[in-house]
């Protein structure tokens, strides 16, 4: 099978030999076709690959983005509500009321019940002194004058702190709001908020166990505990992402080198950043499966295409080679036939011209003989007559040659009649039976059943068979064998093979055996027998061929059409 795919004896081939040319043709055909078919396939696959990857990533990214957005919104809302509540209170209630401990405590209790999340509340005057305080600690009278947050709230009117460990060892943060009264003096309301609410929101997101979600500050310190074990106020282990107005999704590699997808959102007007960490590998499992299928498809398609291309190219080149060969053979055959015809015509022309002077020589010499015979007293009469006879013999020889030459070029009509080849050959062999018996030569005919009758010229066909069988007899030693095999071939032809057990014909002679005047018999024979036979077979619409091997005998193969042309 592999030979079918690669019908060359070896790779390459030197220069311009036929084999090399066919190999090059095959190579170019294969390469070009392969390129043209596989390139688009690869391109399409690559494009699909990237499209799919993008789509998958997109599918991945969207929910993360939405989640981060959602958390951002609700957290911002939560903080805004608390800020709003405090702003309302500090505007609504006059300083005196707020500075009053009992009143503040009452306000705080109501606030706590109404809003939730407040852990304590305190009023601080412009000197930094906490004048009233409601809450679990003893912070009344504490002075915040030198603290950073106090300065900040003075400047900005609102302050929101980072998380710190507070009551019950849980993360808390502080909101402070400032208010200026009509005198130009200011005071600050300060409250501690429990991170619990925000943290619970994160916990109820319904995330997969492998994902992590938490809040960090702008230095990367955890503001809530992470789901995967880290505590608040520890290093989060993630780098602080760049600021963005909305939720963003980025890709990162952790310390171990694993890829992760991080959705984050800056919580406005706070030091907080919400972080959502997802492991893409699990999510991309479906993508990987698809990608593998795509690659497998590509590989299998490419292999199938290549095999097909190889097979087709090889087949085509093979057929091309065959066709070229047949064409070369046909051309050669035609050339040969033409050559024969030309020689024949030439020969006939010469023969025709020679015949007349030959006839004259014949008659003059004949007359000479007649006169010699009549005359009684001629010195050396016998010798003279012998000389004349010798001349006449030579004339006879010339005559035979010219007659055969003329026969060679004859444009005889083919008389068509049905012929039983078997019986004709039997006749021919019978004709030579005396010689066969004398020389102990065996003859046999092999004929398959239902051998067809053919349409041809009886006389000429007989001449052909007789000539070949005669040659066979002449070539063999005594005790040889002549075998005649009949075969029916496809396309309405029959084949008659006449084989002998003679010495065989060497290759250089074999090539010229049908040439007119070519003979190995030296003085005997005209060298015309086979060339005439060749001509007759061609005329009958057939073809004659010879196979021989020195030491193994000779076979003449005569192919004839079943119906005369």
């Amino acid at each position: 099978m592999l030979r079918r795919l690669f019908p060359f004896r070896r790779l390459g081939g030197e220069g311009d030999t036929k084999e090399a040319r066919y190999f090059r043709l095959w190579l170019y055909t294969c390469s070009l076709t392969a390129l043209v078919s596989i390139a688009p396939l690869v391109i399409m696959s690559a494009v699909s690959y990237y499209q799919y990857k993008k789509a998958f990533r997109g599918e991945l990214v969207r929910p993360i983005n939405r989640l981060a957005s959602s958390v951002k919104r609700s957290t911002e809302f939560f903080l805004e509500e608390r800020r709003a509540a405090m702003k309302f209170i500090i505007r609504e209630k006059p300083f005196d009321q707020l500075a009053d401990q009992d009143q503040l405590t009452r306000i705080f209790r109501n606030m706590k019940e109404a809003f939730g999340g407040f852990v304590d509340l305190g009023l601080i005057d412009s000197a930094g002194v906490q004048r009233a305080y409601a809450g679990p600690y003893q912070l009344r009278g504490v002075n915040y004058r030198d603290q950073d947050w106090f300065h900040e709230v003075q400047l900005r009117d609102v302050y929101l702190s980072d998380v710190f460990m507070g009551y019950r060892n849980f993360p808390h943060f502080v909101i402070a709001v400032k208010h200026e009264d009509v005198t130009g003096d200011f005071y600050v309301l300060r409250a501690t908020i429990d991170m619990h609410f925000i943290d619970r929101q994160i916990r109820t997101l319904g995330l997969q166990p492998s994902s992590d979600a938490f809040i960090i500050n702008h230095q990367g310190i955890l503001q809530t505990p992470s789901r995967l074990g880290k505590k608040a106020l520890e290093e989060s282990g993630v780098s602080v992402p760049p600021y963005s107005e909305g939720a963003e999704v980025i890709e990162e590699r952790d310390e171990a080198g694993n890829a992760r997808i991080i959705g984050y959102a800056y919580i406005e007007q706070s030091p907080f950043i919400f972080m959502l960490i997802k492991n893409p590998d699990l999510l991309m499992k479906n993508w990987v499966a698809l990608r593998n299928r795509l690659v497998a498809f590509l590989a299998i398609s490419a292999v199938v295409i290549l095999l097909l291309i190889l097979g087709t190219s090889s087949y085509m080149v093979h057929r091309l080679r065959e066709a070229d060969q047949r064409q070369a053979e046909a051309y050669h055959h035609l050339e040969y036939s033409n050559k024969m015809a030309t020689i024949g015509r030439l020969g006939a022309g010469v023969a025709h011209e020679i015949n007349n002077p030959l006839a004259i020589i014949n008659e003059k010499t004949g007359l000479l003989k007649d006169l010699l015979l009549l005359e009684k007293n001629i010195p050396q009469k016998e010798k003279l007559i012998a000389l004349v006879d010798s001349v006449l013999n030579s004339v006879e020889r010339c005559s035979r040659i010219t007659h055969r030459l003329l026969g060679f070029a004859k444009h005889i009509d083919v008389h068509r009649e049905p012929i039983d080849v078997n019986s004709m050959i039997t006749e021919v062999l019978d004709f030579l039976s005396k010689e066969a018996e004398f020389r102990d030569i065996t003859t046999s005919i092999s004929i398959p059943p239902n051998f067809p009758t053919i349409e041809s010229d009886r006389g000429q066909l007989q001449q052909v068979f007789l000539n070949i069988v005669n040659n066979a007899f002449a070539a063999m030693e005594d005790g040889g064998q002549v075998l005649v095999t009949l075969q029916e071939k496809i396309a309405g032809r029959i084949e008659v093979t006449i084989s002998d057990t003679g010495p065989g014909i060497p290759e250089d002679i074999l090539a010229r055996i049908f040439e007119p005047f070519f003979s190995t018999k030296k003085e005997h024979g005209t060298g015309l027998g086979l060339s005439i036979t060749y001509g007759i077979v061609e005329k009958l619409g057939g073809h004659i061929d010879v196979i021989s091997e020195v030491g193994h005998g000779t076979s003449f193969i005569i192919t004839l059409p079943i119906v005369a042309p």
Partner: protein
Amino acid sequence: MDTFRVLLVDDEEELVTTIAERLQLRGYHAEAVSNGEDALKRIEEKPFEVVVVDVKMPGMDGLELLRRIKAKNPSAQVILLTGRGSAKDSEAGIEEGAFDYLIKPINIEELIKKMKQATGR
């Protein structure tokens, strides 16, 4: 032996006169001419039992002469001589009434045999 009169016609004079001479040596009355017109004239002067005619001659060719002879002397037997080995012309001749044909160069004995056959002797 019955002798008979034979006329030989061939444009190759050397040939035809020699054949006539040889026939005469054998006791036949043979005459030779080298073209068709002369042949017809001779036949008019005296009858010939056999006329041997070369098929290919310039001027009047053998077949034409054959027709003319047959027209004038239907009893005369014509034997054709051909140098071409082409049976076609000769067979055409036989259809036109020639007795037979011989291929050149001929054998004198064969010619005599044919002539005897032609005249039934």
